[in-house]
Protein backbone atom coordinates (compact mmCIF):
# COMPACT_ATOMS: atom_id res chain seq x y z
CA UNK A 1 0.00 0.00 0.00
CA UNK A 2 1.41 3.42 -0.85
CA UNK A 3 2.41 5.65 2.02
CA UNK A 4 0.51 8.92 2.35
CA UNK A 5 1.95 11.91 4.09
CA UNK A 6 -0.58 14.55 5.02
CA UNK A 7 0.46 17.98 3.79
CA UNK A 8 -2.84 19.80 4.18
CA UNK A 9 -5.19 18.49 6.81
CA UNK A 10 -8.91 19.20 6.56
CA UNK A 11 -8.82 22.82 5.54
CA UNK A 12 -12.40 24.06 5.62
CA UNK A 13 -14.31 26.75 3.79
CA UNK A 14 -17.98 27.58 3.99
CA UNK A 15 -19.98 30.02 1.89
CA UNK A 16 -23.62 30.89 1.76
CA UNK A 17 -25.25 33.05 -0.87
CA UNK A 18 -25.32 33.46 -4.60
CA UNK A 19 -22.99 31.50 -6.86
CA UNK A 20 -23.08 29.28 -9.92
CA UNK A 21 -22.63 25.58 -9.22
CA UNK A 22 -21.69 24.89 -12.83
CA UNK A 23 -19.09 27.64 -12.95
CA UNK A 24 -17.62 26.63 -9.63
CA UNK A 25 -17.28 23.00 -10.71
CA UNK A 26 -15.82 23.99 -14.09
CA UNK A 27 -13.38 26.35 -12.45
CA UNK A 28 -12.07 23.61 -10.15
CA UNK A 29 -11.96 21.04 -12.97
CA UNK A 30 -10.17 23.41 -15.36
CA UNK A 31 -7.72 24.51 -12.72
CA UNK A 32 -6.65 20.92 -12.11
CA UNK A 33 -6.33 20.22 -15.80
CA UNK A 34 -4.29 23.38 -16.31
CA UNK A 35 -1.99 22.36 -13.46
CA UNK A 36 -1.43 18.93 -15.05
CA UNK A 37 -3.49 16.83 -12.67
CA UNK A 38 -5.32 13.69 -13.76
CA UNK A 39 -9.03 13.66 -13.07
CA UNK A 40 -10.46 11.56 -10.34
CA UNK A 41 -14.00 11.93 -9.14
CA UNK A 42 -14.76 9.47 -6.39
CA UNK A 43 -18.30 10.49 -5.76
CA UNK A 44 -20.94 12.62 -7.40
CA UNK A 45 -24.30 12.81 -5.70
CA UNK A 46 -27.25 14.95 -6.69
CA UNK A 47 -30.53 14.66 -4.85
CA UNK A 48 -33.50 16.81 -5.75
CA UNK A 49 -35.41 17.84 -2.63
CA UNK A 50 -38.33 20.25 -2.15
CA UNK A 51 -36.07 22.74 -0.30
CA UNK A 52 -33.46 22.62 -3.07
CA UNK A 53 -30.82 20.27 -4.42
CA UNK A 54 -28.28 18.50 -2.28
CA UNK A 55 -25.00 18.01 -4.14
CA UNK A 56 -21.96 16.17 -2.90
CA UNK A 57 -18.77 15.82 -4.91
CA UNK A 58 -15.54 14.18 -3.88
CA UNK A 59 -12.58 14.93 -6.12
CA UNK A 60 -9.18 13.37 -5.72
CA UNK A 61 -7.00 14.50 -8.63
CA UNK A 62 -3.39 13.43 -8.66
CA UNK A 63 -0.18 14.41 -10.38
CA UNK A 64 2.92 12.27 -10.68
CA UNK A 65 6.02 14.08 -9.48
CA UNK A 66 8.39 11.19 -10.13
CA UNK A 67 8.06 7.44 -10.58
CA UNK A 68 8.10 7.25 -6.82
CA UNK A 69 6.02 10.16 -5.54
CA UNK A 70 2.78 11.83 -6.52
CA UNK A 71 0.73 14.75 -5.27
CA UNK A 72 -2.86 14.06 -4.36
CA UNK A 73 -5.43 16.73 -3.55
CA UNK A 74 -8.71 15.68 -2.06
CA UNK A 75 -11.64 18.04 -2.12
CA UNK A 76 -14.98 17.23 -0.63
CA UNK A 77 -17.72 19.65 -1.61
CA UNK A 78 -21.15 19.58 -0.07
CA UNK A 79 -23.88 21.91 -1.25
CA UNK A 80 -27.17 22.31 0.54
CA UNK A 81 -30.52 23.78 -0.50
CA UNK A 82 -29.35 24.74 -3.97
CA UNK A 83 -32.05 26.67 -5.78
CA UNK A 84 -32.01 28.35 -9.15
CA UNK A 85 -32.54 32.11 -9.05
CA UNK A 86 -32.58 34.83 -11.69
CA UNK A 87 -30.43 37.87 -10.98
CA UNK A 88 -29.95 41.10 -12.89
CA UNK A 89 -26.30 41.98 -13.44
CA UNK A 90 -25.23 44.92 -15.65
CA UNK A 91 -28.81 45.16 -16.99
CA UNK A 92 -28.82 41.52 -18.12
CA UNK A 93 -30.64 38.68 -16.46
CA UNK A 94 -28.50 35.74 -15.49
CA UNK A 95 -29.30 32.44 -13.84
CA UNK A 96 -27.42 31.69 -10.66
CA UNK A 97 -27.81 29.37 -7.73
CA UNK A 98 -28.46 30.19 -4.15
CA UNK A 99 -27.47 27.93 -1.31
CA UNK A 100 -24.80 26.87 1.09
CA UNK A 101 -21.52 25.29 0.09
CA UNK A 102 -18.99 23.60 2.31
CA UNK A 103 -15.48 22.57 1.22
CA UNK A 104 -12.96 20.32 2.93
CA UNK A 105 -9.45 20.26 1.42
CA UNK A 106 -6.77 17.67 2.05
CA UNK A 107 -3.36 17.43 0.45
CA UNK A 108 -1.16 14.35 0.41
CA UNK A 109 2.20 13.30 -0.84
CA UNK A 110 1.84 9.68 -1.86
CA UNK A 111 5.05 7.68 -2.09
CA UNK A 112 5.63 4.28 -3.67
CA UNK A 113 2.31 4.53 -5.50
CA UNK A 114 3.15 1.53 -7.66
CA UNK A 115 3.81 -0.58 -4.54
CA UNK A 116 7.24 -1.61 -5.74
CA UNK A 117 8.69 -1.63 -2.23
CA UNK A 118 5.94 -3.64 -0.65
CA UNK A 119 6.88 -7.23 -1.44
CA UNK A 120 8.81 -8.17 1.69
CA UNK A 121 9.38 -6.68 5.16
CA UNK A 122 12.99 -5.88 4.24
CA UNK A 123 11.77 -3.78 1.28
CA UNK A 124 9.35 -1.96 3.56
CA UNK A 125 12.19 -1.28 5.98
CA UNK A 126 14.45 -0.06 3.18
CA UNK A 127 11.68 2.15 1.81
CA UNK A 128 11.30 3.86 5.17
CA UNK A 129 15.06 4.44 5.28
CA UNK A 130 14.96 5.88 1.76
CA UNK A 131 11.93 8.06 2.55
CA UNK A 132 13.54 9.41 5.68
CA UNK A 133 17.08 10.05 4.43
CA UNK A 134 17.57 9.72 0.67
CA UNK A 135 14.27 11.12 -0.60
CA UNK A 136 14.11 13.74 2.11
CA UNK A 137 13.75 16.59 -0.41
CA UNK A 138 10.47 15.05 -1.65
CA UNK A 139 8.98 14.13 1.69
Amino acid at each position, binding site marked *: MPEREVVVDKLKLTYEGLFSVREL*YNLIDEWFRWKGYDKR*ENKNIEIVKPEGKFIEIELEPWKKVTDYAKNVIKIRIQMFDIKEVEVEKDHTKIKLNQGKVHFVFDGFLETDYESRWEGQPIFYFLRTIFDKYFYKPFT
Partner: protein
Amino acid sequence: MSKTLSFRKVRYVPIIKFGGIFNYEGFMKTLRNWIVDQGYEFHETSVKYKVPSPIGSEVEYAWWGWRKVNSYVKFHIDVFFHFWDLHDVEVVREGKKQKLQSGRFQIEITGRCELDWTNRFAGSRFMQALADFYDNYIVRRDIDTIYTDQLYYRLYKFQKVAKEYLDFETKESAYQDVW
Protein backbone atom coordinates in the same frame (compact mmCIF):
# COMPACT_ATOMS: atom_id res chain seq x y z
CA MET B 1 -1.97 -25.27 -20.54
CA SER B 2 -4.40 -22.41 -20.67
CA LYS B 3 -3.15 -18.94 -19.91
CA THR B 4 -4.44 -17.05 -16.89
CA LEU B 5 -6.20 -13.93 -18.08
CA SER B 6 -4.19 -10.80 -17.59
CA PHE B 7 -6.19 -7.72 -16.65
CA ARG B 8 -5.16 -4.23 -15.78
CA LYS B 9 -7.97 -2.85 -13.73
CA VAL B 10 -8.54 0.81 -14.29
CA ARG B 11 -8.68 2.73 -11.05
CA TYR B 12 -12.28 2.72 -10.06
CA VAL B 13 -14.35 5.47 -11.45
CA PRO B 14 -16.91 7.62 -9.81
CA ILE B 15 -19.96 6.54 -8.12
CA ILE B 16 -22.91 8.58 -9.31
CA LYS B 17 -25.90 8.88 -7.04
CA PHE B 18 -29.12 10.56 -7.97
CA GLY B 19 -32.45 11.07 -6.30
CA GLY B 20 -35.46 12.67 -7.92
CA ILE B 21 -37.66 12.46 -10.99
CA PHE B 22 -36.25 11.15 -14.25
CA ASN B 23 -37.14 9.23 -17.38
CA TYR B 24 -36.05 5.72 -16.52
CA GLU B 25 -36.49 4.17 -19.94
CA GLY B 26 -34.85 7.05 -21.77
CA PHE B 27 -31.96 7.07 -19.34
CA MET B 28 -31.18 3.39 -19.71
CA LYS B 29 -31.56 3.59 -23.50
CA THR B 30 -29.17 6.56 -23.74
CA LEU B 31 -26.48 4.80 -21.72
CA ARG B 32 -26.89 1.55 -23.62
CA ASN B 33 -26.72 3.38 -26.95
CA TRP B 34 -23.51 5.11 -25.93
CA ILE B 35 -21.86 1.77 -25.19
CA VAL B 36 -23.04 0.34 -28.51
CA ASP B 37 -22.14 3.49 -30.49
CA GLN B 38 -18.61 3.41 -29.12
CA GLY B 39 -18.18 0.00 -30.72
CA TYR B 40 -18.59 -2.17 -27.66
CA GLU B 41 -20.28 -5.54 -27.68
CA PHE B 42 -23.10 -5.10 -25.19
CA HIS B 43 -24.26 -7.68 -22.64
CA GLU B 44 -26.76 -7.37 -19.85
CA THR B 45 -25.28 -9.89 -17.47
CA SER B 46 -27.83 -9.71 -14.69
CA VAL B 47 -31.16 -8.16 -13.81
CA LYS B 48 -32.73 -8.32 -10.36
CA TYR B 49 -36.19 -7.07 -9.59
CA LYS B 50 -37.62 -7.21 -6.10
CA VAL B 51 -41.32 -7.30 -5.42
CA PRO B 52 -42.29 -3.62 -5.01
CA SER B 53 -43.03 -2.20 -1.59
CA PRO B 54 -45.50 0.71 -1.14
CA ILE B 55 -42.65 3.19 -1.75
CA GLY B 56 -41.51 1.56 -4.97
CA SER B 57 -39.43 -1.23 -6.40
CA GLU B 58 -35.77 -2.16 -6.11
CA VAL B 59 -34.01 -3.01 -9.35
CA GLU B 60 -30.42 -3.98 -10.14
CA TYR B 61 -28.73 -4.24 -13.51
CA ALA B 62 -25.23 -5.36 -14.41
CA TRP B 63 -23.93 -4.46 -17.85
CA TRP B 64 -20.78 -5.55 -19.54
CA GLY B 65 -19.35 -4.15 -22.73
CA TRP B 66 -16.16 -5.20 -24.47
CA ARG B 67 -14.26 -3.93 -27.46
CA LYS B 68 -11.12 -5.05 -29.25
CA VAL B 69 -8.53 -2.30 -29.41
CA ASN B 70 -5.88 -4.27 -31.24
CA SER B 71 -4.70 -7.85 -31.40
CA TYR B 72 -3.26 -7.62 -27.90
CA VAL B 73 -5.54 -5.30 -25.92
CA LYS B 74 -9.25 -5.47 -25.25
CA PHE B 75 -11.31 -2.97 -23.24
CA HIS B 76 -14.08 -4.05 -20.90
CA ILE B 77 -16.59 -1.74 -19.27
CA ASP B 78 -18.65 -2.93 -16.33
CA VAL B 79 -21.60 -0.90 -15.17
CA PHE B 80 -23.66 -1.68 -12.14
CA PHE B 81 -26.99 0.07 -11.50
CA HIS B 82 -28.95 -0.10 -8.31
CA PHE B 83 -32.34 1.59 -8.12
CA TRP B 84 -34.43 2.05 -4.99
CA ASP B 85 -37.99 3.27 -4.42
CA LEU B 86 -38.64 3.34 -8.14
CA HIS B 87 -42.21 4.25 -9.01
CA ASP B 88 -44.15 6.01 -11.75
CA VAL B 89 -45.19 9.63 -11.39
CA GLU B 90 -47.19 11.92 -13.64
CA VAL B 91 -45.59 15.28 -14.32
CA VAL B 92 -46.86 18.29 -16.23
CA ARG B 93 -43.99 19.76 -18.24
CA GLU B 94 -44.59 22.64 -20.65
CA GLY B 95 -48.32 22.03 -20.45
CA LYS B 96 -48.03 18.35 -21.36
CA LYS B 97 -48.63 15.42 -19.08
CA GLN B 98 -45.70 13.04 -18.95
CA LYS B 99 -45.23 9.73 -17.23
CA LEU B 100 -41.85 9.71 -15.54
CA GLN B 101 -40.24 7.81 -12.72
CA SER B 102 -39.20 8.85 -9.27
CA GLY B 103 -36.60 7.13 -7.15
CA ARG B 104 -32.98 7.09 -6.23
CA PHE B 105 -30.12 5.15 -7.69
CA GLN B 106 -26.41 4.52 -7.73
CA ILE B 107 -24.19 3.71 -10.70
CA GLU B 108 -20.73 2.20 -10.45
CA ILE B 109 -18.54 2.15 -13.52
CA THR B 110 -15.38 0.09 -13.78
CA GLY B 111 -12.98 -0.55 -16.62
CA ARG B 112 -10.69 -3.47 -17.31
CA CYS B 113 -7.97 -3.70 -19.86
CA GLU B 114 -7.49 -7.30 -20.97
CA LEU B 115 -4.08 -8.21 -22.31
CA ASP B 116 -3.25 -10.97 -24.78
CA TRP B 117 -6.86 -11.81 -25.46
CA THR B 118 -5.84 -13.88 -28.51
CA ASN B 119 -3.85 -16.16 -26.19
CA ARG B 120 -0.64 -15.81 -28.11
CA PHE B 121 1.30 -16.55 -24.98
CA ALA B 122 -0.79 -19.52 -23.94
CA GLY B 123 0.63 -23.01 -23.92
CA SER B 124 3.33 -23.40 -21.31
CA ARG B 125 4.69 -21.95 -18.12
CA PHE B 126 7.58 -20.50 -20.05
CA MET B 127 5.18 -18.65 -22.34
CA GLN B 128 3.26 -17.42 -19.31
CA ALA B 129 6.48 -16.09 -17.79
CA LEU B 130 7.36 -14.50 -21.11
CA ALA B 131 3.93 -12.85 -21.18
CA ASP B 132 4.47 -11.49 -17.67
CA PHE B 133 7.87 -10.13 -18.68
CA TYR B 134 6.40 -8.60 -21.85
CA ASP B 135 3.52 -6.96 -19.95
CA ASN B 136 5.55 -5.77 -16.98
CA TYR B 137 8.70 -4.56 -18.72
CA ILE B 138 8.46 -4.25 -22.49
CA VAL B 139 4.99 -2.76 -23.04
CA ARG B 140 4.30 -1.59 -19.50
CA ARG B 141 4.56 2.11 -20.34
CA ASP B 142 2.27 1.73 -23.36
CA ILE B 143 -0.29 -0.13 -21.32
CA ASP B 144 -0.25 2.45 -18.56
CA THR B 145 -0.04 5.63 -20.58
CA ILE B 146 -1.95 4.68 -23.71
CA TYR B 147 -4.44 1.93 -23.02
CA THR B 148 -5.48 2.14 -19.38
CA ASP B 149 -5.36 5.92 -19.52
CA GLN B 150 -7.56 5.92 -22.60
CA LEU B 151 -10.05 3.56 -21.00
CA TYR B 152 -10.01 5.64 -17.82
CA TYR B 153 -11.02 8.83 -19.62
CA ARG B 154 -13.59 6.98 -21.72
CA LEU B 155 -15.28 5.92 -18.54
CA TYR B 156 -15.51 9.59 -17.59
CA LYS B 157 -17.16 10.24 -20.96
CA PHE B 158 -19.70 7.57 -20.13
CA GLN B 159 -20.23 9.20 -16.76
CA LYS B 160 -20.73 12.54 -18.52
CA VAL B 161 -23.49 11.04 -20.70
CA ALA B 162 -25.31 9.95 -17.54
CA LYS B 163 -24.82 13.35 -15.91
CA GLU B 164 -26.03 15.18 -19.01
CA TYR B 165 -29.16 13.08 -19.22
CA LEU B 166 -29.98 13.77 -15.59
CA ASP B 167 -29.05 17.43 -16.00
CA PHE B 168 -26.50 17.40 -13.21
CA GLU B 169 -25.12 20.77 -12.22
CA THR B 170 -21.67 19.22 -12.63
CA LYS B 171 -22.20 17.78 -16.09
CA GLU B 172 -19.39 19.75 -17.78
CA SER B 173 -15.89 18.32 -17.84
CA ALA B 174 -12.61 20.06 -18.52
CA TYR B 175 -11.16 16.71 -19.55
CA GLN B 176 -13.68 16.09 -22.32
CA ASP B 177 -11.11 16.27 -25.11
CA VAL B 178 -8.68 13.85 -23.47
CA TRP B 179 -8.71 10.71 -25.67
